């Protein structure tokens, strides 16, 4: 397969690179904007499309909670299943 670089299809891929990566220069010779992110988080999310910005890490936390509940429930069934079999 051939690599693609199409302005619409790969804009998010471009964002990931241009905003998060690339060479950075020693802070004391460049214009700094204190702690303000150059591009607001909301704007970034809008640019990238909200759903793609939902990083896996966030989902994982949410997943873990669900999984714990599921494990407890599973134990309950196993106990019940034993009763059923008996």
């Amino acid at each position, binding site marked *: 397969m051939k690599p693609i670089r199409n302005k619409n299809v790969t804009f998010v891929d471009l964002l990931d690179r241009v905003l998060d990566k690339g*060479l950075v220069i020693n802070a004391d010779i460049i*214009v700094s904007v204190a702690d303000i992110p150059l591009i607001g988080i909301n704007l970034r999310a*809008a640019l990238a499309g909200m759903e793609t910005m939902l990083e896996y890490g966030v989902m994982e936390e949410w997943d873990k909670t669900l999984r714990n509940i599921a494990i407890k*429930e599973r134990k309950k069934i196993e106990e019940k299943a034993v009763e059923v079999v008996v």
Partner: protein
Amino acid sequence: MEQEIQQKLGEETKEGRYVYCIVDKSKSIKFGRIGIENNEVYTITHKGLCAVVHNCKSQAYISDNEEMVKDWIKTHQNVIDIVSEKFNTVVPLTFDIIVKGSNKDVVDWLRKDYERLKRTLKKVKDKQEFGIQIFWDEEKIGEKIAGVNQEIQNLKKGIKKVSQGEAYFYKNTIETILKKEMEEKADEYFKKFYNMIREHVNNTKIDKLKKEKDKQMLMNLSCLIHKNKVKKLGAELEKINRLDGFSVKFTGPWPPYSFVSPG
């Protein structure tokens, strides 16, 4: 008169240079008004290096206007693309890096950072970056796993014999088992694909996975590749893309954004 000098000094300290990229040749070139907000882009040279810049105020480009920011970012990339056509090796900068002061300050920086910049240029010489994202169809893969997992099969049979409430818990259990199995499979496939890809590239960076609309990402890689090795990598990726339930997004060539940070 004094007031005039004061004013001039004030203006001078407000000057800045927006830097797009670094190139490993000393060549004075004017690229025309291709820069952000139609600024003239040109090179500032120092001993076998040059910085590609435009003149601006000593002030970052910040805006809440989505379209405007999109435009800036596309232009940043476009300038680097144009420079890349003229020069083989380019070190791209992050968006919105502005050196305070005039050309002299840029030269000062090139001199001070000389060794590091040369090293970085050497590392990416004649190479390009490509993005590889591998997705899997969770539903399809999940069905396959469920089809061969004995525990799940047993539970599925059991569901028919129990009350509605219990059936609900059976379903939950199946989901839990499936999730665990999927995680193990994801790990297995990740290693397998990573090894397939690794053979064809010079360097890799593993990026964070992202959730996309209806596809689950399994792997997000940036790879540094010698220009004439891209075809082989493409052929390898085609193998993965053909596997049932998997798809590959292969993007590039990009300037080597992922391989120019210190270290």
